[in-house]
């Protein structure tokens, strides 16, 4: 049924579009199940989260998003930090249809602006996992690696800035840096 729906969408839709469906989040700073449950309970309260399955051993949470509800990655990060821990990895499964991406390009997905880094110019179709690489979404040492790949100010702040002037921007609007 899902495939038929997808096929219909692909046939009908002429313009490019994309949507988030689910995410894999790995938390850091914990080993115990009590800590893991604290994160689980905190993520459960996020408004756009439909369901979560957790792997205590790897501190990984598979998060299913509610359909047609706006997703906010900062809310997921806040849920983890409020529980007392950090986000180590956030990979978001995203359905793309004819979406062109290239380095330092912006795309809008379900109300979020994504800024792609360290990618080849390509057109995306079907389900792809994108990784959020903003500060506090990856370990500090990984952030420093990405920092070396760009001189753009917006990567430091996570907010749109003059460096993003090629795109239609609203200065200081949240922008998520991501890669594939």
């Amino acid at each position: 049924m899902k495939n038929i729906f997808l096929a219909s969408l692909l046939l009908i839709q002429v313009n490019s579009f994309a949507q988030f469906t689910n995410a894999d989040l790995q938390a850091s700073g914990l080993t115990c199940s009590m800590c893991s449950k604290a994160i689980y309970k905190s993520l459960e309260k996020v408004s756009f989260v439909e369901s979560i399955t957790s792997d205590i051993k790897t501190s990984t949470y598979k998060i299913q998003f509610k359909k047609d509800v706006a997703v906010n990655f900062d809310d997921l990060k806040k849920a983890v930090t409020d529980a007392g821990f950090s986000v180590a990895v956030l990979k978001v499964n995203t359905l793309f249809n004819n979406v062109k991406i290239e380095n330092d390009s912006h795309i809008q997905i379900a109300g979020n602006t994504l800024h792609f880094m360290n990618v080849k110019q390509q057109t995306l179709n079907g389900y792809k996992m994108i990784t959020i690489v903003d500060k506090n979404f990856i370990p500090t040492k990984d952030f420093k690696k990405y920092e070396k790949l760009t001189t753009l100010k917006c990567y430091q702040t996570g907010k749109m800035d003059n460096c993003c002037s090629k795109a239609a921007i609203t200065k200081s609007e949240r922008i998520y840096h991501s890669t594939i």
Partner: protein
Amino acid sequence: MKNIVVLCLLFFTSKIKAQELFVYTEPASNMPAKSVGLRLSNNWMNDDKANRINYFLLPEIMWGVNKNLMLHAEMIASDRTRKFGYEGWSLYGKYRFLSKDGVHNHFRMAAYARVSSNNSHIHQEEIEINANNSGYEVGLIATKLINKVAISASSSFEKANNNANNNKFPITHSNKAINYTLSFGKLMLPKSYDNYKQTNVNFMIELLGQSIVDRNKAYLDVAPSIQFIFNSQSRIDIGYRKQIAGNMIRMSSFGYLIRLEHLIF
């Protein structure tokens, strides 16, 4: 002392998983933001002077104000006057100011403060504002979790005032102390985590020391404990605390503890 060193070495060299939900000390980590914890501590402490066991009941409510700040409020009751009754209260706050997280590891530091009121008679040189004295305590905690081993250390300054009910602090005693602790924890069960309903069994060993300022008086206690965690939400701690070195007059040089704790997320 030799046995303790051997025990500590065994901790470091064996293949272990650690827990930092210590029984006799607090880790630098906090409880989740906006969560509430209920704790009921039962202490059976030997009264060294009267050679009897005194029972202390300490109900406590804990609140995670935000991810960095938590507050505790506690009531103290005991039967040390041969009649069980209210003895005092204690407020505790802890602020986590440093947090470096990696997958399955972290380093955290926190500052804490406690203020207490107690109405019991004072004859001991030991200062303990969480059971015997009115006063305050300020300290620092550092907790390291690395390669599944958790180690926590703390140091604090503690000052006693006169107790309530006109029980004055003895003028011949020094009312200031420096405390230091070192804690280790080991997860014994389960061998492998599958779900949140598995009962966790942790073993802890803690060293608790105090030096009285301006006096050549000190003690060092060892406190082994076992902890059961049910449904990743409720705890039962069973502990034993005993002096292994010391030269001060104390209310109690050994005692037992049973603590119940439940976390409401």
